[in-house]
Structure formats: structure tokens, C-alpha cells
């Protein structure tokens, strides 16, 4: 504290801020805030999931009771005996894999160019992919659907693939671009120097070093696409039904609660993979990369 500050009476707001700060610090010290946050978050975040997990294994759960009266797995068989589910689940996996693959094929060369080549407008073009986030998403889907409607792409596989590809671009370009930029050129030069051909340098030096980032991009793209419901709903119906789209009808028009719960649980598997890798994904900054941050 300077003498000057002691001499001049502080503005009223000063008291407010230092007060808030101090109170924050005391809160943190006493863990009061943390405890309240923990309890509230646990209730609000885990509560809904608690219901889903228990419903998936419930034979009978009558109000009021904290847990089902009868546990059992009989609904699992019935769920997967349904033709629509048995068809949509493998289809969704193949579709997500296809979209991821196409996205990789068109985006990875582009990201290499963005990272390693010099051309006019490079920075601007790279930033232009932010446009995929800059529209109200559903409005954009409607706008695309209107064009697809005229091109007879509604209810077709190419239509669904195209609309899902749009969502993958930012992630599949920005993460690899940053990764390629992160590879020190002298590491590649050193490999050239000991006699490796440019292709071998790329395969044996550059690629292994960007591999963690590339796998993260591929995994995130696959998972995001697998869960993408809105674009597939607008463009895919009535003939193309992905698993998430099927969920809409399971939720809206099914009297048997267990179907939705079981499908939710099964559908959650890809997210579980992300959750297991969460620390690594967070450290690499990959989880927010899809937002351009």
C-alpha cells in the first residue's frame, strides 16, 4: 500500500471490490463456497444421470421411491429386439465413421497447407472456417435443407453426410493445423540430413509427432458426428434414421421408459471414451478447439 493511497480516502467502490475479494478468499479458505458448489453441482449434474442409469436396469419403479422396486435386464432384450434400434445403431456408427473419414481426407491436406505453406490470404481463409460457428445452427440447417429439398437430397445418405460434414470442418482443420505448426522444422531437416526422403521424413518424423493431435481430432469428430441429431433430423427424415434421431421418437412417443434409458446408456459409450481421455484432451486444448478457442 502506498502512502498516497492511505492519505486519500478510497472511493466507495474500492471497499466493495476489496470486500468481495476478501470475502471470496475467506469463502475459498473455509471451503464454504466450494462445498455449496459441490453439493449443488452434484445434485444438478448427477441427478439426471442417476435417473437414467437406474431406469435402464429397472423392471418396476413406482413413485415414490428413491430406487426401483425391482431390478432386471429383461428390457434390454426387448430394446434390441426392436427392428428400428437394431438397424439404426450400426448404421449410425458406420455413418459417423464415414463422415469422419471423408472429413479427414479433405481437411488434413488443407491443414498441412495452412500450417506449412505460404500463400496469399492464408490467415483469412483459416479464420473463415469460424463461419461454421457464426450462424444460429438450426437456421442454417433449414437454409441448407431448403436447397437440398430442391436438389432432391432430402432423405438421402449424401444429404446427411454433407450436412454432417459442415460441423466437422473447424475441428478437423484447426487442431491439425496447430499440430503441424508445432513440429519444429529442424527436426525434419535433421532427418533429411541423415538421408531420409521427404516422404519418409513425413511418415516417420512429422506424422508420429502430430499423431496425438490427429487422433484427438479424429476421435472428437467421430463422437460429435455420432451424436449429431439436428442436421440428420432436418435432412435425413423420413428415410435416413440415425440413432440420435430415433431417440427423439423414443422420448416423445414411447410409453415404456426403459427403452429411452437403455438406448441413452448405450449411446453414451463414445462419450465415455472421451471422458476416460478427458485429461489428455483438456491438456491439449482439444475439447474447446471446436469452438475456435
Amino acid at each position, binding site marked *: 500500500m502506498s502512502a498516497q493511497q492511505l492519505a486519500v480516502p478510497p472511493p466507495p467502490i474500492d471497499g466493495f471490490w476489496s470486500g468481495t475479494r476478501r470475502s471470496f478468499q475467506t469463502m475459498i479458505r473455509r471451503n464454504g463456497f466450494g462445498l455449496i458448489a459441490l453439493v449443488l453441482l452434484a445434485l444438478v449434474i448427477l441427478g439426471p444421470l442417476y435417473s437414467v442409469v437406474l431406469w435402464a436396469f429397472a423392471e418396476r419403479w413406482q413413485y415414490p421411491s428413491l430406487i426401483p422396486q425391482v431390478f432386471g435386464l429383461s428390457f434390454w432384450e426387448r430394446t434390441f429386439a426392436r427392428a428400428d434400434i437394431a438397424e439404426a445403431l450400426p448404421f449410425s456408427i458406420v455413418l459417423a465413421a464415414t463422415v469422419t473419414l471423408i472429413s479427414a481426407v479433405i481437411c488434413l491436406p488443407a491443414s498441412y497447407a495452412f500450417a506449412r505453406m505460404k500463400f496469399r490470404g492464408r490467415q483469412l481463409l483459416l479464420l473463415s472456417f469460424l463461419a461454421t460457428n457464426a450462424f444460429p445452427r438450426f437456421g442454417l440447417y433449414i437454409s441448407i435443407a431448403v436447397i437440398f429439398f430442391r436438389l432432391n437430397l432430402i432423405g438421402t445418405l449424401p444429404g446427411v453426410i454433407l450436412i454432417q460434414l459442415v460441423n466437422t470442418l473447424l475441428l478437423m482443420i484447426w487442431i491439425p493445423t496447430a499440430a503441424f505448426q508445432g513440429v519444429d522444422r529442424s527436426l525434419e531437416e*535433421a*532427418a*533429411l*540430413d541423415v*538421408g*531420409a*526422403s*521427404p516422404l519418409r521424413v513425413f511418415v*516417420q518424423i512429422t506424422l508420429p509427432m502430430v499423431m496425438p493431435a490427429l487422433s484427438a481430432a479424429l476421435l472428437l469428430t467421430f463422437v460429435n458426428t455420432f451424436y449429431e441429431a439436428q442436421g440428420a433430423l432436418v435432412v435425413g427424415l423420413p428415410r435416413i434414421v440415425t440413432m440420435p434421431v430415433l431417440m427423439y421418437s423414443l422420448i416423445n412417443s414411447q410409453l415404456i421408459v426403459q427403452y429411452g434409458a437403455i438406448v441413452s446408456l448405450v449411446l453414451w459409450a463414445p462419450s465415455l471414451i472421451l471422458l476416460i481421455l478427458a485429461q489428455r484432451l483438456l491438456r491439449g486444448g482439444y475439447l474447446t478447439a471446436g469452438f475456435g478457442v
Partner: protein
Amino acid sequence: MAILDLVRLDKHFGSVAAVSDVAFTVSDGEFMCILGPSGCGKSTLLRMIAGFETPTGGDIRIDGDSIVALGANRRPTAMVFQKYTLWPHMKVFDNIGFGLQLRRLPRAEIKRKVEESLALVSLSGYEERYPAQLSGGQQQRVALARALVLEPKILLLDEPFSSLDAILRVRLREELHRIQRRLNITAIFVTHDQEEALTLADRIAVMNSGRIEQIAAPADIYANPASLFVADFIGAMNLLEGEASGRQVRLGAVALPTPDGIAARQVTVAIRPEDLVVLDGPHPEAWSCAVEQISDLGHYRRAVLEVPQLPPMKIYLPKSLSVQERAALHVYPRRYLIYENGGAPREVSRPLPAAAAALLG
């Protein structure tokens, strides 16, 4: 056996000349240092030899054959880079063995060569480590081993020790010197550190603004810097500008004799601190000056002198001479070089004045 010839080598980036008209020969087993301030083009020159830059003019020959058309991966050169450039995803063994694997050597042979080269850099037993598990100095040794294992005709080193701390730098420098002598390999070493160049090199090429200023043995460069730039860049030097007239140049209170044939009026006189001798009394060719500052450097002392009408001068004082700051001294230049604009220097070396027999320097 490897002789490197650089023939009128040029490199332009757009309109900027990074290297211009560089020509010299490095003979077999010679250790050549390219010395210059940052941005003088020395790294570009080395990168052209390695094949990472394409010259815009001239030729590079190894044992008489031009290698300019060859890619970096086909040249018989090997480079040690400035930063640690070990591949982080490969163990030390694979880092060193990578080039050998590319050459499809048998496994046993690769193993033997890797072990040999690790022994050469005193890192036996480190094969299974990853680069991240090594210290900076160890990483640079592995990089050296990686370059040497391919038995290159020419070893190129681009400021390999600049990211290490001072003590380690000296140790690795000595080790490099020993290895180079033992293998008798032709080596080119780029540095901005004159001490490094002076201790390592058989010959030094001093570069400035893309051109070679001088190529000579370290002692020669030190004694006879060919240009004002070299005089200023290598070692400590007092540079005094003065006007020459009638076989004399006036520098403050003293007129120093000049040799025949000095045509220019404006000349620069360069005097090494060790060529300034302290006399016991005034002398017409000695400056009378005051000691401004003394720093003790262990076995000798360095003083900065305040000379009337001239810039401050550096001088070395033996420990036996007890001089305090602010004391008055008379210093006499025993040897100096006179530079006219752009030309080679003229040396003046003379005996000590007979009148002042009792010398203290």
C-alpha cells in the same frame, strides 16, 4: 578424404543478399570456423552446404564433384543443429540408427555402429533413453553421434553449443575438438562466439553482411585483422580515428609515424590493449592519461584510460604494477595497424624508446 570447394557462392532472398560471392576451400581433415555476428549469412552458408537452401549462384563441390543438384538427403554431409533436434518419439538408439536403417545396414552392424558412436561421445549405455530423459548437453552429444555415425565426408555444425550454459559449452567444445582430431574429419563450424572459434579452428572465416572478410589461422586473424570489421570483431582493440599528413598521424597529443604510401587523410589506427606499454615518464610518442577504471581479471588487470581528445582506451596491466584508479600513466603504442578506407592495414612495429629505459609494462 574430403575437400570442400565453395565457388563464388551467392544466395539472395528476393532483393536481399544473404550470402554473396563466397569462395574458399576447406582441405581434408581441416576444422574451419565461420565466425560472424548474427544475420551475417553464416547459417545460410552452412545450410546451403547441407542442402537446405538452394544457392542462387555459384557451386559447391566435394572432392571436385558438384553437389548443388543433390537434395539434402543425398549429400555426404551431416549436420548438428543449434537447438536440440533429436526426434522426441524415438529412443537414443533409433535416433542414431535411423540413418543407418535407411541405408539398410544389417541389424548387428547398426548396433555395433550406434554403440561405437555413443562411446565416442561418452554416452555408452544410453541407447534406451528417450530424448526428454537427457540433459541439454547429453542431447547435443547424441546429435553429434547421430551425425558422426553416418561417417559423413563433411561434418557441419550450426552453433551447436549456443543453448548450453557456459561451463558445459567449454567442456563440449573440448570434446568436439578431441573427436574431430581423432577421426580427422573435415568440419565446418558456424558460431558467433569468437572464443569458440579461436580455440577450435584450424582456420577462421570471418563473415560480415554476407561476405567473407578474412580467412586465416586464428593467430593470424588476431595479429593481422584484414579489415576494420575484423579488427573490431575479434578480440579487444582500441580504434582511433585520426588525420594523416606527411608520414604522421595525429591522435590527441601524440603524432604517430606512418609507413610510406598512406594516401588517405582519414585513417583509423588500431592498437591491441597488450601493445600499449606503460612508461615511467612522459614521452613525445606516449599519451599522458588518467586511469578511469580498473577491473581485476585474475592473472592480470584491465584498465580503461581517459586520454585527452581521444575515446577511452583499454590496456592490460600486470599485477606487479600497483596502479590506483585516477592515477596518471604514460602509455606508448609498441605496435599498431593503420587502416585506410577499405584497404588492407599497414603494420607499424617498433622498439621501445631508448630514453625511457625503466619500463613498467
